[in-house]
């Protein structure tokens, strides 16, 4: 199996799907001549030409809505955002148009579109550029939200997302693009709506996804296993619709659960997951579910302050020990 960067995995998914279906195109700021702000689309302009790899002016509402209209007319747009933080200026297009058009038309139209880009805290970008947008979108009926945590998942999930007939919010991280991993060749597809049990264990169910999983949760799991706590680590992969079944199966075995994200806790992504779990998991739990999240402050610029607001290995280990009464 070839090793590649996550950025290359995304590129190969887009390239393969564009070769497979001429209705797929890529549009966004700097995606063409600049090769992508983070070089995800490097070489794609040369391969597919300017009619399918399309630079836009800085007009998020304009080009995100353009994508929705094009999808209503039968195309399959991939809309790249330089940062998901910038979608605060085009929420209306995603929430009111992409997500609602099918329902409001009584199912007359479908909106097969992928919105993708870097989500969350990408190190010292300050409060405006560090939004974790998953809880904003994962609460919207009509949208699908996915967040890969490995290069292989990035490729497989993106290919499935491009083929999906519903609008997909595809959450990457600028801090994951250089990650290297094995990526299956060819038509490798990861299902949407299925969580992945990354490590089987019996003592506690540890839930996370995307960037937080990659940044600290895997390290915390290793530390806990070294400490004799048999962690079951689940990569949620899809945040909407949530694979509650896989999570419950795990909790029935472990009777304990900790959720980790980089969102704010109140109304955060983990809060939504807790809402889905508290009733069906209640009878199986030996301790309240713990939720490790960011401090409830705007994201500070200074490196030590930013680090301090984020979930750390120590915080996760402490939370797991709390639910395990250790």
């Amino acid at each position, binding site marked *: 199996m070839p090793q590649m960067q996550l950025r290359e995995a995304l590129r190969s998914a887009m390239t393969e799907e564009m070769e497979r279906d001429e209705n797929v195109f890529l549009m966004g700021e700097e995606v063409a001549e600049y090769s992508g702000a983070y070089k995800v689309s490097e070489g794609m302009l040369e391969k597919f030409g300017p009619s399918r790899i399309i630079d836009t002016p800085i007009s998020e509402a304009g080009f995100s809505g353009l994508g929705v209209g094009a999808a209503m007319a039968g*195309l399959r747009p991939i809309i790249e955002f330089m940062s998901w933080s910038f979608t605060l200026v085009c929420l209306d297009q995603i929430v009111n148009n992409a997500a609602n058009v099918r329902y409001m038309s009584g199912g007359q139209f479908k909106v097969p579109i992928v919105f993708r880009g870097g989500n969350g805290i990408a190190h010292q970008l300050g409060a405006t550029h560090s939004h974790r947008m998953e809880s904003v979108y994962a609460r919207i009926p009509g949208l699908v939200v996915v967040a890969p945590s490995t290069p292989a998942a990035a490729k497989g999930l993106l290919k499935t997302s491009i083929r999906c007939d519903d609008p997909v919010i595809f959450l990457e991280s600028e801090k994951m693009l250089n990650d290297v991993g094995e990526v299956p060749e060819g038509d490798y597809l990861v299902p*949407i709506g299925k969580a992945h049990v990354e490590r089987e264990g019996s003592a506690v169910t540890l839930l996370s996804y995307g960037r937080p999983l990659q940044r600290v949760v895997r390290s915390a799991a290793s530390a806990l296993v070294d400490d004799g706590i048999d962690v079951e680590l689940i990569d949620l992969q899809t945040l909407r619709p949530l694979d509650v079944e896989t999570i419950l199966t795990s909790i029935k075995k472990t009777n304990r659960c900790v959720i980790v994200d980089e969102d704010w806790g109140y109304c955060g992504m983990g809060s939504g997951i807790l809402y889905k779990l508290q009733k069906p998991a209640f009878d199986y739990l030996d301790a309240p579910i713990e939720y490790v999240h960011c401090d409830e402050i705007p994201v500070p610029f200074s490196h030590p302050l930013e680090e301090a607001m984020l979930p750390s290995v120590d915080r996760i280990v402490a939370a797991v020990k709390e639910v395990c009464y250790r």
Partner: protein
Amino acid sequence: MAVANELEKRSAGRKPPVEESPAPSSPAGNGQHPTVSPQTQIARLRMMMLIRRFEEQTFREYTKPGQKVGGFCHLYSGQEAIAVGTAALFDKTRDYLINGYRCHGHSLALGMSPHSAFAELFGKATGCSKGKGGSMHLFDAQDHNMGGHGIVGGQLPLGIGLAFAQQYKKTGGVTFTFMGDGAINQGTHNESLNLAGLYKLPCIFVVENNGVAMGTQVERSSAEKDLAQRGCGYAMPHYHVDGNDIDRVIAEFGKAVERGRSGKGPSYIVADTYRFRGHSMSDPMKYRKLSDGSWGPEVEEARKRDPITLFQVRLQEEGLITDSQIDELDEQVGEEISQAVQRADNDPFPALESRFEDALAETYPLEK
């Protein structure tokens, strides 16, 4: 200052289009155009009358006891020439139309049955959107009616997206992107016009300028009073048309259609008109009344320029229709409307379980 004079000024004596185009080749114009048959002209008149009847019936259904039409409801009475003129140019096999929330008239003009529209207004299962859209969100995929959209200006990016797809697939189609004079002050107006001009998309932006955004007159909302100038700076022709004169609408929109089909890019047209009813059903139209509560002069002046009357008089003058034929038409559309209401009234509400349908196209987990 009489607002009516302002209305006339808006329509008359404007600068010609930035770019002169040849007359449209499609069947358009008035009786002087040999390509337009009397039957076609009469069918257009009939549709305008049908839309008026539909809206006035909607008004009654909304306001009478046991109100059947719920939610917000925005009537099109007075603006019919624009929708029907557009439909005259519209090629359902390749063109698209997208709209703001004042969408009843365009939907009927493109072919939606009054029954389907009434049923949607009543929230019935037989409505065009199965009772899930309502008055502001009438969609009809068959007619390429890409919907009424409830957020002011929110439909403009979708309009350029439809036009983008037409360009991408080289269909030769054009997209009519409708908005009111209120939408031009939204940010999406700037972004969409710029993208359309930049990519040379076959998008026809139509501003239906009825002079007032909800209760705020253009004079109090736009720094530039000549609204065609708001289409300036985007590399596209921008001009006015008398939106109450269907033949002028067809002729001027026709130029934009020609331009779009031939790959020259977008156009921006301000169709000046008048809204006989309030912004929505809850609008007492104080802004049109004198201090004693009676209608101000603008209303009387606007009635004189009723697009239906103007067209009727023209067809009579051309000898295409008689008084009694107009009465007959009126009776016909009246009957059609009352039958449609009755049918929609008797239709069932959607099954409660249907509320879970149509949110997503796929079932999950999704493996492809």
